[in-house]
């Protein structure tokens, strides 16, 4: 009996093997779960954009009024400075040299004043005793000479002052209170005046930070001034920051991609909305990119309202 049905049993076994093989082959593949959970949008309806952290005072690229060799740097990276504190000094030996001659010239001018002044004094004393002893013309000449010598002295003094002001211009001071964010200069390096690509000192008030959010022009119409927003620190979605609306730049600019390549070309324009938050002890830094979600009304209702 068994022998007779052996083939039949074998066939049924075969079908079972096939079914097992099907189940085995269609078992879901082992996949890598996200290493770091991506952030979940905190609003039901929102616009997403990348935000760049900047100081609330904007990031100030400190410039020098006079190009030259750096003599002395009075701050370190991360220092907090008050408005008016000295940041760095440019080499001023040329002006110090000019100051020597200018100071000497003051003495010379002072000395040159003595002779006409004494002559004028004598003439005036003489004229008091005997009014006819000296002509009015001579006396006037003496007075003019004295006035001229006095003016020369004033000029020499002014030149000293001018050089002192020039020397003071070579000392660069903090325009506002804030932190030194970046320090590229070293003593002995030459700093350029005017607008430079890499500023020697970058400073800003980072007690309060701003986030410059790029909103794609296709979504810009959905963002209302004052809308709520939340920032997520990249790489740690648990670290989220509630943002306060600061202002909106009403000019839409080409998007800058942060690949750091000079050949970068842009194809989209973005609306920049600026949000703020107090830094506290949050590990967020100026120049960092954050993922931003800005609350916005749902598209469908916006469209119907616009259509009405």
């Amino acid at each position, binding site marked *: 009996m068994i022998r*007779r049905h052996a*083939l*039949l049993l*074998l*066939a*049924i*076994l*075969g*079908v*079972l*093997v*096939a079914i*097992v*093989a*099907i189940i*085995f*082959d*269609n078992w*879901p*593949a*082992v*996949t*890598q*779960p*996200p*290493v*770091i*959970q*991506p*952030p*979940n*949008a905190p609003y*039901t*309806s*929102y*616009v*997403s*954009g*990348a935000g760049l952290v900047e100081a609330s005072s904007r990031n100030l690229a400190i410039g020098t009024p006079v190009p030259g060799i750096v003599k002395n740097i009075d701050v370190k990276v991360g220092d907090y400075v008050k408005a008016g504190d000295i940041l760095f000094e440019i080499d001023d030996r040329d002006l110090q040299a000019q100051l020597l001659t200018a100071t000497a010239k003051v003495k010379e001018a002072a000395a040159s004043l003595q002779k006409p002044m004494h002559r004028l004094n004598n003439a005036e004393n003489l004229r008091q005793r005997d009014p006819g002893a000296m002509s009015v013309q001579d006396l006037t000449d003496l007075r003019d000479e004295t006035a001229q010598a006095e003016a020369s002295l004033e000029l020499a003094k002014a030149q000293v002052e001018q050089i002192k002001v020039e020397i003071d211009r070579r000392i660069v001071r903090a325009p506002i209170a804030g932190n030194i964010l970046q320090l590229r200069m070293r003593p002995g390096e030459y700093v350029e005046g005017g607008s430079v690509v890499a500023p020697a000192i970058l400073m800003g008030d980072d007690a309060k930070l701003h986030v410059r959010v*790029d909103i*794609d022009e*296709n*979504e810009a119409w*959905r963002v209302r001034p004052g809308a709520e927003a939340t920032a997520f620190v*990249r*790489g740690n979605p648990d670290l989220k920051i509630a943002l306060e609306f600061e202002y909106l730049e009403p000019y839409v600019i080409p*998007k800058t*991609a942060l*690949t750091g390549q000079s*050949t970068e*070309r842009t*194809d*989209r324009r*973005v609306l920049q909305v600026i949000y703020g938050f107090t830094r506290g002890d949050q590990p967020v830094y100026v120049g960092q990119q954050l*993922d931003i979600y800005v609350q*916005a009304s*749902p*598209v469908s209702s916006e469209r119907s309202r616009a259509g009405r």
Partner: protein
Amino acid sequence: MLYIALKILMADRAKYTGLLLGIAFTAFLVTFAASYFSGFMTRGFALIAENGAADVWVMDAAVESVEQTTNMPDSALDRIRSVEGVRYAVPLALGTVDARFPNGRFQTFQVIGVDDATLVGAPVLKDGGVPIVLRAPDAAIIDDGGTSGKLVTPVLETDQWPHDGVHLEVATRELVAGDELLANDQRIKVVGRSETLPRFPPRPLIYTTFSSAARMLPQERHLLTFVLATAEPGLSPNDLAHRIHARTGLRARASEDFKTDTVRWYLVNSEDVGDMAAMLILAMSVGFGVTGVLLYIFTYENLKQYAVLNAMGATPKVLLTMIFAQAGICALIGSGLGLGLCGLVGEVTAKAGYPFRMMWFTPLLGAIGVLIVSLTAAAISARPVLKLQPAVVFAGR
């Protein structure tokens, strides 16, 4: 009468066994061919399968598969993230790069750039490590992607980055974490080997972060190939795909649909697949032919018995039932055996690294195919039975 039919069938053990083996072989061949083809197609969408967490794939409006892609502007990511119902969306960059091994040999790799922040899309590492190692500078996880023996580096230190030209014919070992490659003047530091799903066509893979991919790959205007979106709980991937498409104008497909798209793309566009399909169909035809002929011969050789039965008063209808019953039973038992064989051999083949995947329809295809062929053969061999004269018994044939 059916009992007599079975008796006739099983009486001649040699013929019966031969017949069953023939049918089993056909069932095996058809199922195996179909499963092998399914295996190829499954490997074709391996990239989609290995990103199981992604509900919706968003791509340029003209892209139809993971095999032939073009890129989108970076702003697409933010636009997709702004669509309601997207729980999160991450970028994925695909590209091809020629990388050099330390001995100067070069190899074309597919570069897969995953999201820097979350590393969604990173593969499962072989030694069970965490893909967070990709955060290291120039780090890459290397995968053989279905190839073998391509990812090797010279054993000897003197053969690595030689100053006197390439050292091709030297002793080699498998790449391990810590080895280096060179692509487009960029260092690629291997931080691990992964074992993801093999690819079709097979190709070595480099998994790295999106920003590293931007440095490794040749300069291109756009780098963003896919955006992988995950739906909010309660929202179906299909609905989300429709919503993303309506809002952004980009092509958005639920993962399952995108797999289907990719398979369709292969069927329509890939010459390799056409050649393969032709060969498989050829194999199937041979199997079918053999089965049909075997069954026909079997019936024909038993004509005498039928003649006797006919003479004893069996109507043609009864005779037909008998023939079809024989054919049907042979087909059923044969395909059962064939399927079992296919399951066993297939799993061994799959373990050996070949693209074998038995899907629900492949054994069905084998069984139904064999059944149709058997019944057709029975129908053809029915003609002589019906035209039978009982005198054949005495004709001495």
